[in-house]
Protein backbone atom coordinates (compact mmCIF):
# COMPACT_ATOMS: atom_id res chain seq x y z
CA UNK A 1 0.00 0.00 0.00
CA UNK A 2 1.38 3.44 -0.93
CA UNK A 3 0.49 6.03 1.65
CA UNK A 4 2.89 8.88 0.99
CA UNK A 5 0.90 10.77 -1.62
CA UNK A 6 -2.52 9.39 -1.04
CA UNK A 7 -5.07 12.17 -1.10
CA UNK A 8 -8.25 11.52 0.82
CA UNK A 9 -11.74 12.87 0.96
CA UNK A 10 -12.33 15.71 3.41
CA UNK A 11 -13.51 14.88 6.92
CA UNK A 12 -15.70 17.71 8.17
CA UNK A 13 -15.59 18.16 11.92
CA UNK A 14 -18.54 19.79 13.69
CA UNK A 15 -19.42 20.27 17.34
CA UNK A 16 -22.26 17.82 16.87
CA UNK A 17 -20.77 14.35 16.49
CA UNK A 18 -17.23 15.58 17.10
CA UNK A 19 -16.12 12.59 19.19
CA UNK A 20 -17.33 10.12 16.57
CA UNK A 21 -15.53 12.02 13.80
CA UNK A 22 -12.30 12.06 15.81
CA UNK A 23 -12.51 8.30 16.30
CA UNK A 24 -12.71 8.01 12.52
CA UNK A 25 -9.71 10.30 12.12
CA UNK A 26 -7.56 7.89 14.13
CA UNK A 27 -8.76 4.78 12.26
CA UNK A 28 -5.64 4.70 10.09
CA UNK A 29 -3.18 6.09 12.66
CA UNK A 30 -0.99 2.98 12.90
CA UNK A 31 -0.41 2.70 9.14
CA UNK A 32 0.21 6.41 8.82
CA UNK A 33 2.63 6.44 11.76
CA UNK A 34 4.54 3.51 10.31
CA UNK A 35 4.95 5.48 7.07
CA UNK A 36 6.80 8.34 8.82
CA UNK A 37 10.46 8.15 7.75
CA UNK A 38 12.09 10.41 10.38
CA UNK A 39 11.78 9.74 14.10
CA UNK A 40 12.59 12.03 17.03
CA UNK A 41 12.33 11.33 20.73
CA UNK A 42 11.47 13.81 23.41
CA UNK A 43 10.34 13.62 27.01
CA UNK A 44 7.74 10.86 27.15
CA UNK A 45 7.11 10.99 23.43
CA UNK A 46 8.19 9.74 20.04
CA UNK A 47 7.40 11.69 16.92
CA UNK A 48 7.48 10.65 13.29
CA UNK A 49 7.27 12.81 10.19
CA UNK A 50 8.22 12.82 6.55
CA UNK A 51 9.30 16.47 6.76
CA UNK A 52 13.09 16.66 7.20
CA UNK A 53 12.98 20.32 8.27
CA UNK A 54 10.42 19.63 10.97
CA UNK A 55 12.45 16.64 12.13
CA UNK A 56 15.43 18.97 12.57
CA UNK A 57 13.27 21.42 14.55
CA UNK A 58 12.28 18.58 16.88
CA UNK A 59 15.80 17.27 17.27
CA UNK A 60 17.01 20.74 18.21
CA UNK A 61 14.19 21.86 20.50
CA UNK A 62 13.09 18.72 22.36
CA UNK A 63 14.95 17.87 25.53
CA UNK A 64 16.46 14.43 25.34
CA UNK A 65 14.66 11.48 26.82
CA UNK A 66 16.92 10.96 29.83
CA UNK A 67 14.15 9.98 32.17
CA UNK A 68 10.66 8.74 31.53
CA UNK A 69 8.26 11.25 33.05
CA UNK A 70 5.09 9.34 32.30
CA UNK A 71 3.55 6.99 29.78
CA UNK A 72 5.02 7.56 26.38
CA UNK A 73 2.89 8.94 23.55
CA UNK A 74 3.39 8.82 19.79
CA UNK A 75 2.75 11.80 17.57
CA UNK A 76 2.69 11.91 13.77
CA UNK A 77 3.35 15.23 12.02
CA UNK A 78 1.96 15.12 8.49
CA UNK A 79 0.25 17.05 5.76
CA UNK A 80 -3.50 16.90 6.09
CA UNK A 81 -5.02 14.49 3.57
CA UNK A 82 -1.80 12.49 3.14
CA UNK A 83 -0.52 9.17 4.50
CA UNK A 84 -3.99 7.69 4.33
CA UNK A 85 -5.34 10.29 6.75
CA UNK A 86 -8.44 12.35 5.98
CA UNK A 87 -8.21 15.93 4.78
CA UNK A 88 -9.53 17.67 7.90
CA UNK A 89 -11.95 20.59 7.59
CA UNK A 90 -13.85 22.52 10.25
CA UNK A 91 -17.47 22.17 9.18
CA UNK A 92 -18.92 25.20 10.98
CA UNK A 93 -18.63 28.90 10.29
CA UNK A 94 -16.40 29.64 13.28
CA UNK A 95 -14.05 27.56 15.36
CA UNK A 96 -14.59 28.49 19.01
CA UNK A 97 -11.83 26.86 20.99
CA UNK A 98 -13.44 26.95 24.43
CA UNK A 99 -16.69 25.50 23.12
CA UNK A 100 -14.75 22.66 21.56
CA UNK A 101 -12.82 22.13 24.79
CA UNK A 102 -16.07 21.90 26.75
CA UNK A 103 -17.48 19.45 24.22
CA UNK A 104 -14.43 17.20 24.47
CA UNK A 105 -13.61 17.57 28.18
CA UNK A 106 -15.26 14.29 29.20
CA UNK A 107 -13.96 12.37 26.21
CA UNK A 108 -10.65 10.75 25.34
CA UNK A 109 -9.88 13.40 22.71
CA UNK A 110 -8.26 16.82 22.80
CA UNK A 111 -8.24 19.21 19.85
CA UNK A 112 -6.52 22.45 18.93
CA UNK A 113 -7.06 24.18 15.58
CA UNK A 114 -5.73 27.39 14.06
CA UNK A 115 -8.17 28.18 11.32
CA UNK A 116 -6.07 30.87 9.61
CA UNK A 117 -3.29 28.43 8.71
CA UNK A 118 -5.20 25.14 8.84
CA UNK A 119 -3.04 23.78 11.67
CA UNK A 120 -4.52 20.84 13.58
CA UNK A 121 -3.42 19.08 16.73
CA UNK A 122 -5.54 16.13 17.86
CA UNK A 123 -4.75 13.76 20.73
CA UNK A 124 -6.29 10.47 21.77
CA UNK A 125 -5.61 10.18 25.51
CA UNK A 126 -6.70 6.57 25.68
CA UNK A 127 -4.22 5.31 23.11
CA UNK A 128 -1.69 8.11 23.68
CA UNK A 129 -1.52 8.89 19.99
CA UNK A 130 -1.47 12.33 18.40
CA UNK A 131 -1.78 13.89 14.98
CA UNK A 132 -0.37 17.25 13.99
CA UNK A 133 -1.77 17.96 10.55
CA UNK A 134 -0.65 20.94 8.50
CA UNK A 135 -1.42 22.38 5.07
CA UNK A 136 2.24 22.14 4.00
CA UNK A 137 5.61 21.07 5.45
CA UNK A 138 6.11 24.66 6.68
CA UNK A 139 2.51 25.11 7.78
CA UNK A 140 3.19 25.51 11.50
CA UNK A 141 2.74 28.71 13.54
CA UNK A 142 5.68 31.08 14.00
CA UNK A 143 6.12 30.24 17.66
CA UNK A 144 6.14 26.49 17.14
CA UNK A 145 9.90 25.87 16.59
CA UNK A 146 10.59 27.18 20.13
CA UNK A 147 8.33 24.65 21.82
CA UNK A 148 7.10 22.12 19.24
CA UNK A 149 4.41 19.59 20.22
CA UNK A 150 3.85 21.46 23.50
CA UNK A 151 0.13 20.80 23.53
CA UNK A 152 0.65 17.07 23.09
CA UNK A 153 3.07 17.04 26.04
CA UNK A 154 0.43 18.82 28.13
CA UNK A 155 -2.36 16.46 27.09
CA UNK A 156 -0.16 13.42 27.71
CA UNK A 157 1.36 14.44 31.03
CA UNK A 158 -1.19 16.58 32.87
CA UNK A 159 -2.48 15.00 36.05
CA UNK A 160 -3.39 15.68 39.64
CA UNK A 161 0.20 16.21 40.74
CA UNK A 162 1.98 17.17 37.56
CA UNK A 163 1.67 19.48 34.62
CA UNK A 164 3.40 21.90 32.29
CA UNK A 165 4.19 25.27 33.82
CA UNK A 166 5.57 28.37 32.13
CA UNK A 167 8.69 29.09 34.13
CA UNK A 168 12.42 29.61 33.84
CA UNK A 169 14.65 27.37 35.94
CA UNK A 170 18.11 27.39 37.51
CA UNK A 171 19.91 25.09 39.92
CA UNK A 172 22.99 25.42 42.07
CA UNK A 173 24.24 21.99 43.00
CA UNK A 174 21.11 20.10 43.98
CA UNK A 175 19.09 23.21 44.78
CA UNK A 176 16.79 24.33 42.02
CA UNK A 177 14.40 27.23 41.69
CA UNK A 178 11.81 28.49 39.24
CA UNK A 179 11.17 31.99 37.89
CA UNK A 180 7.66 33.01 36.92
CA UNK A 181 6.21 36.20 35.56
CA UNK A 182 4.94 37.94 32.47
CA UNK A 183 7.06 38.72 29.41
CA UNK A 184 9.53 41.50 30.14
CA UNK A 185 9.83 40.68 33.86
CA UNK A 186 13.46 39.56 33.42
CA UNK A 187 12.86 35.83 33.75
CA UNK A 188 14.89 34.76 30.72
CA UNK A 189 17.70 37.25 31.34
CA UNK A 190 18.12 35.83 34.84
CA UNK A 191 18.20 32.25 33.58
CA UNK A 192 20.75 33.20 30.91
CA UNK A 193 22.95 35.02 33.40
CA UNK A 194 22.80 31.96 35.66
CA UNK A 195 23.74 29.37 33.08
CA UNK A 196 26.50 31.63 31.70
CA UNK A 197 27.82 31.58 35.28
CA UNK A 198 27.80 27.79 35.46
CA UNK A 199 24.39 27.07 36.96
CA UNK A 200 22.23 24.20 35.66
CA UNK A 201 18.75 24.46 34.13
CA UNK A 202 15.89 22.31 32.86
CA UNK A 203 14.66 25.07 30.58
CA UNK A 204 13.31 28.55 30.25
CA UNK A 205 9.94 28.10 28.59
CA UNK A 206 7.64 25.29 29.61
CA UNK A 207 8.89 22.68 32.06
CA UNK A 208 7.15 19.70 33.62
CA UNK A 209 6.51 20.29 37.33
CA UNK A 210 5.80 17.26 39.53
CA UNK A 211 4.86 17.15 43.18
CA UNK A 212 6.05 13.90 44.75
CA UNK A 213 6.13 13.10 48.47
CA UNK A 214 6.02 16.77 49.36
CA UNK A 215 8.90 17.63 47.01
CA UNK A 216 8.63 19.64 43.81
CA UNK A 217 10.66 18.44 40.85
CA UNK A 218 11.00 20.05 37.46
CA UNK A 219 11.93 18.14 34.30
CA UNK A 220 13.23 19.39 30.98
CA UNK A 221 10.89 19.44 27.98
CA UNK A 222 12.64 21.92 25.66
CA UNK A 223 16.20 23.12 25.16
CA UNK A 224 15.23 26.49 23.73
CA UNK A 225 16.16 29.93 25.06
CA UNK A 226 15.15 33.31 23.66
CA UNK A 227 16.53 36.78 24.27
CA UNK A 228 16.27 40.15 22.54
CA UNK A 229 19.42 41.75 21.04
CA UNK A 230 19.63 44.30 23.88
CA UNK A 231 19.61 41.54 26.48
CA UNK A 232 22.24 39.59 24.52
CA UNK A 233 24.50 42.63 24.61
CA UNK A 234 23.93 43.19 28.34
CA UNK A 235 24.82 39.56 28.99
CA UNK A 236 27.85 39.76 26.66
CA UNK A 237 26.43 36.94 24.54
CA UNK A 238 26.25 39.00 21.34
CA UNK A 239 29.78 37.96 20.30
CA UNK A 240 29.15 34.27 20.94
CA UNK A 241 29.77 32.44 17.66
CA UNK A 242 27.63 29.47 18.64
CA UNK A 243 24.53 31.67 18.73
CA UNK A 244 22.91 32.55 15.42
CA UNK A 245 22.88 36.25 14.58
CA UNK A 246 19.43 35.84 13.04
CA UNK A 247 16.28 36.63 15.00
CA UNK A 248 12.95 34.84 15.19
CA UNK A 249 9.40 36.13 14.57
CA UNK A 250 9.54 38.09 17.86
CA UNK A 251 12.81 39.80 16.90
CA UNK A 252 14.59 37.64 19.47
CA UNK A 253 17.63 35.41 19.14
CA UNK A 254 16.62 31.79 19.59
CA UNK A 255 19.21 29.26 20.70
CA UNK A 256 19.70 26.33 23.06
CA UNK A 257 21.04 25.84 26.57
CA UNK A 258 24.06 24.02 25.11
CA UNK A 259 24.87 27.01 22.87
CA UNK A 260 25.46 29.11 26.00
CA UNK A 261 27.05 26.47 28.20
CA UNK A 262 27.37 22.85 27.00
CA UNK A 263 27.09 21.49 30.55
CA UNK A 264 24.12 23.59 31.71
CA UNK A 265 21.24 21.35 30.60
CA UNK A 266 20.07 18.68 33.04
CA UNK A 267 17.04 16.38 32.95
CA UNK A 268 15.59 17.11 36.41
CA UNK A 269 16.03 19.47 39.32
CA UNK A 270 14.48 19.54 42.75
CA UNK A 271 12.80 22.92 43.15
CA UNK A 272 13.28 24.72 46.47
CA UNK A 273 11.79 28.14 45.72
CA UNK A 274 9.71 30.15 43.27
CA UNK A 275 11.03 33.61 42.37
CA UNK A 276 8.98 36.42 40.84
CA UNK A 277 11.46 38.61 38.94
CA UNK A 278 10.97 42.34 38.35
CA UNK A 279 13.12 44.60 36.18
CA UNK A 280 13.87 47.70 38.26
CA UNK A 281 16.84 49.45 36.64
CA UNK A 282 18.48 49.58 40.08
CA UNK A 283 22.12 48.70 40.71
CA UNK A 284 21.40 46.28 43.54
CA UNK A 285 19.35 43.09 43.53
CA UNK A 286 16.82 42.81 46.34
CA UNK A 287 15.09 39.56 47.32
CA UNK A 288 12.06 39.66 49.62
CA UNK A 289 9.25 37.24 50.50
CA UNK A 290 6.17 37.00 48.27
CA UNK A 291 2.72 35.69 49.15
CA UNK A 292 1.39 32.46 47.67
CA UNK A 293 -1.49 34.34 46.02
CA UNK A 294 0.81 36.75 44.17
CA UNK A 295 3.10 33.87 43.18
CA UNK A 296 0.08 32.02 41.81
CA UNK A 297 -1.02 35.06 39.83
CA UNK A 298 2.49 35.27 38.32
CA UNK A 299 2.63 31.57 37.47
CA UNK A 300 -0.87 30.53 36.38
CA UNK A 301 -2.21 32.92 33.73
CA UNK A 302 0.25 32.30 30.90
CA UNK A 303 0.01 28.51 31.07
CA UNK A 304 -3.74 28.45 31.60
CA UNK A 305 -4.27 30.85 28.69
CA UNK A 306 -1.71 29.47 26.22
CA UNK A 307 -2.29 25.72 26.46
CA UNK A 308 -5.72 24.49 25.38
CA UNK A 309 -7.62 21.78 27.21
CA UNK A 310 -7.53 20.67 30.84
CA UNK A 311 -7.06 24.28 31.95
CA UNK A 312 -8.60 23.49 35.34
CA UNK A 313 -5.83 20.96 35.97
CA UNK A 314 -3.17 23.54 35.01
CA UNK A 315 -4.81 26.04 37.36
CA UNK A 316 -4.72 23.51 40.22
CA UNK A 317 -1.07 22.51 39.67
CA UNK A 318 0.02 26.17 39.68
CA UNK A 319 -1.90 26.67 42.94
CA UNK A 320 -0.16 23.68 44.56
CA UNK A 321 3.25 24.96 43.49
CA UNK A 322 2.54 28.47 44.80
CA UNK A 323 1.36 27.03 48.14
CA UNK A 324 4.08 24.39 48.53
CA UNK A 325 7.14 26.43 47.57
CA UNK A 326 8.70 29.35 49.43
CA UNK A 327 8.04 32.36 47.16
CA UNK A 328 10.16 35.49 46.76
CA UNK A 329 10.13 38.69 44.76
CA UNK A 330 13.49 39.31 43.15
CA UNK A 331 14.09 42.92 42.11
CA UNK A 332 16.77 42.50 39.49
CA UNK A 333 19.94 44.59 39.56
CA UNK A 334 21.15 45.73 36.14
CA UNK A 335 24.56 44.04 36.33
CA UNK A 336 24.22 40.29 35.59
CA UNK A 337 27.28 39.49 37.77
CA UNK A 338 25.82 41.35 40.75
CA UNK A 339 22.44 39.68 40.18
CA UNK A 340 23.90 36.18 40.10
CA UNK A 341 26.12 36.94 43.11
CA UNK A 342 23.05 38.08 45.07
CA UNK A 343 21.12 34.99 44.02
CA UNK A 344 23.95 32.64 45.03
CA UNK A 345 24.33 34.41 48.37
CA UNK A 346 20.58 34.20 49.06
CA UNK A 347 20.47 30.51 48.15
CA UNK A 348 23.45 29.80 50.44
CA UNK A 349 21.85 31.57 53.38
CA UNK A 350 18.16 30.79 52.98
CA UNK A 351 17.66 27.67 50.88
CA UNK A 352 20.53 25.29 51.66
Amino acid sequence: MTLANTSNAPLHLRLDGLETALRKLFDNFENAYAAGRFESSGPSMSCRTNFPKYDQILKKALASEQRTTGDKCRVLVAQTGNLGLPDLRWGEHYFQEREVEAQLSGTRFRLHYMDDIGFWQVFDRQHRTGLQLMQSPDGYPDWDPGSPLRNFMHWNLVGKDQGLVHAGTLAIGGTGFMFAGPGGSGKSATVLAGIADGMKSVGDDYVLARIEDGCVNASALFTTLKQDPEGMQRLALNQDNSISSGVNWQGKHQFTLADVNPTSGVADIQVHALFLPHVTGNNTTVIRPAGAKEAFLALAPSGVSQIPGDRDASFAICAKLARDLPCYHIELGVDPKELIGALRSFVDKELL
Partner: protein
Amino acid sequence: MPDTSYKVSSADIVFEEFDGDLVVLNLASGQYFGLNSPAAAIWTSLVSGVCPADIANAGPKAKAVNKFVEDLLSFELIFPAPDAKATLKPGEIAALRAIGPEPLIEVYDDLADLIVADPIHDVDQEAGWPNLPTSE
Protein backbone atom coordinates in the same frame (compact mmCIF):
# COMPACT_ATOMS: atom_id res chain seq x y z
CA MET B 1 -32.68 36.90 47.61
CA PRO B 2 -31.61 36.54 51.32
CA ASP B 3 -33.51 33.25 51.63
CA THR B 4 -32.40 31.82 48.32
CA SER B 5 -29.66 29.20 48.06
CA TYR B 6 -26.95 29.41 45.41
CA LYS B 7 -24.49 27.15 43.62
CA VAL B 8 -21.36 27.72 41.59
CA SER B 9 -22.68 28.52 38.12
CA SER B 10 -20.86 25.79 36.18
CA ALA B 11 -17.88 23.46 36.06
CA ASP B 12 -16.04 26.33 34.37
CA ILE B 13 -15.72 28.09 37.73
CA VAL B 14 -12.55 26.91 39.46
CA PHE B 15 -11.04 28.34 42.63
CA GLU B 16 -8.06 27.94 44.90
CA GLU B 17 -7.40 29.13 48.42
CA PHE B 18 -4.25 30.97 49.53
CA ASP B 19 -3.83 31.77 53.24
CA GLY B 20 -7.56 32.37 53.63
CA ASP B 21 -7.92 34.37 50.40
CA LEU B 22 -9.44 32.86 47.27
CA VAL B 23 -8.62 33.19 43.58
CA VAL B 24 -11.54 32.29 41.30
CA LEU B 25 -11.21 31.73 37.56
CA ASN B 26 -14.05 31.53 35.08
CA LEU B 27 -12.57 29.26 32.43
CA ALA B 28 -15.30 30.16 29.95
CA SER B 29 -14.69 33.90 30.08
CA GLY B 30 -11.07 33.91 31.22
CA GLN B 31 -11.86 36.28 34.10
CA TYR B 32 -9.87 36.03 37.33
CA PHE B 33 -11.25 37.26 40.68
CA GLY B 34 -9.51 37.76 44.01
CA LEU B 35 -11.59 37.33 47.18
CA ASN B 36 -10.26 38.56 50.53
CA SER B 37 -10.63 36.37 53.63
CA PRO B 38 -14.15 37.58 54.62
CA ALA B 39 -15.33 37.15 51.03
CA ALA B 40 -13.74 33.69 50.89
CA ALA B 41 -15.52 32.65 54.12
CA ILE B 42 -18.89 33.81 52.76
CA TRP B 43 -18.19 32.15 49.38
CA THR B 44 -17.45 28.79 51.04
CA SER B 45 -20.79 28.76 52.87
CA LEU B 46 -22.73 30.25 49.98
CA VAL B 47 -21.63 27.75 47.32
CA SER B 48 -22.35 24.87 49.70
CA GLY B 49 -26.01 26.00 49.64
CA VAL B 50 -26.30 28.16 52.80
CA CYS B 51 -28.62 31.10 52.09
CA PRO B 52 -27.38 34.70 52.58
CA ALA B 53 -29.77 35.30 55.52
CA ASP B 54 -28.28 32.39 57.48
CA ILE B 55 -24.78 33.58 56.65
CA ALA B 56 -25.60 37.08 57.90
CA ASN B 57 -27.09 35.66 61.10
CA ALA B 58 -23.75 34.05 61.88
CA GLY B 59 -21.81 37.32 61.94
CA PRO B 60 -21.27 39.38 58.81
CA LYS B 61 -23.49 42.40 58.13
CA ALA B 62 -26.53 41.50 55.99
CA LYS B 63 -25.96 44.50 53.73
CA ALA B 64 -22.39 43.44 52.98
CA VAL B 65 -23.45 39.83 52.35
CA ASN B 66 -26.24 40.87 49.99
CA LYS B 67 -23.94 43.24 48.08
CA PHE B 68 -21.36 40.45 47.74
CA VAL B 69 -24.02 38.04 46.44
CA GLU B 70 -25.15 40.66 43.91
CA ASP B 71 -21.54 41.01 42.72
CA LEU B 72 -21.14 37.25 42.34
CA LEU B 73 -24.38 37.07 40.37
CA SER B 74 -23.33 39.94 38.10
CA PHE B 75 -20.02 38.16 37.40
CA GLU B 76 -21.99 34.98 36.66
CA LEU B 77 -20.04 33.02 39.25
CA ILE B 78 -23.15 31.69 41.03
CA PHE B 79 -26.77 31.00 40.18
CA PRO B 80 -29.90 30.54 42.35
CA ALA B 81 -30.43 26.91 43.31
CA PRO B 82 -33.34 26.66 45.80
CA ASP B 83 -32.98 22.86 45.99
CA ALA B 84 -29.39 23.15 47.19
CA LYS B 85 -30.39 24.56 50.58
CA ALA B 86 -27.90 23.62 53.32
CA THR B 87 -27.20 24.66 56.88
CA LEU B 88 -24.01 26.13 58.27
CA LYS B 89 -21.41 23.70 59.58
CA PRO B 90 -19.68 24.48 62.89
CA GLY B 91 -16.41 25.36 61.12
CA GLU B 92 -18.22 27.77 58.82
CA ILE B 93 -19.98 29.46 61.73
CA ALA B 94 -16.63 30.02 63.44
CA ALA B 95 -15.14 31.44 60.23
CA LEU B 96 -18.09 33.78 59.67
CA ARG B 97 -18.07 34.99 63.31
CA ALA B 98 -14.40 35.86 62.96
CA ILE B 99 -14.94 37.98 59.86
CA GLY B 100 -13.28 41.35 60.23
CA PRO B 101 -13.31 43.77 57.32
CA GLU B 102 -15.86 43.96 54.50
CA PRO B 103 -15.90 41.16 51.93
CA LEU B 104 -14.07 42.36 48.83
CA ILE B 105 -13.97 40.94 45.33
CA GLU B 106 -11.24 42.17 43.00
CA VAL B 107 -11.48 41.69 39.26
CA TYR B 108 -8.14 41.17 37.57
CA ASP B 109 -9.08 42.77 34.29
CA ASP B 110 -5.50 42.90 33.07
CA LEU B 111 -5.35 39.10 33.22
CA ALA B 112 -8.90 38.59 31.97
CA ASP B 113 -8.29 40.58 28.80
CA LEU B 114 -5.29 38.45 28.00
CA ILE B 115 -6.89 35.13 28.73
CA VAL B 116 -9.97 35.95 26.71
CA ALA B 117 -7.60 37.04 23.96
CA ASP B 118 -6.46 34.33 21.64
CA PRO B 119 -2.92 33.80 22.95
CA ILE B 120 -1.53 33.16 19.52
CA HIS B 121 -3.19 35.87 17.49
CA ASP B 122 -4.13 38.66 19.86
CA VAL B 123 -0.98 39.03 21.92
CA ASP B 124 1.58 41.63 20.90
CA GLN B 125 4.07 39.77 18.72
CA GLU B 126 7.01 41.94 19.76
CA ALA B 127 6.45 42.05 23.48
CA GLY B 128 4.88 38.61 23.90
CA TRP B 129 2.54 37.61 26.68
CA PRO B 130 1.04 39.43 28.60
CA ASN B 131 1.00 42.44 26.29
CA LEU B 132 -1.97 43.03 24.03
CA PRO B 133 -1.31 44.68 20.68
CA THR B 134 -1.52 48.46 20.71
CA SER B 135 -4.79 49.71 19.26
CA GLU B 136 -4.39 51.60 16.02
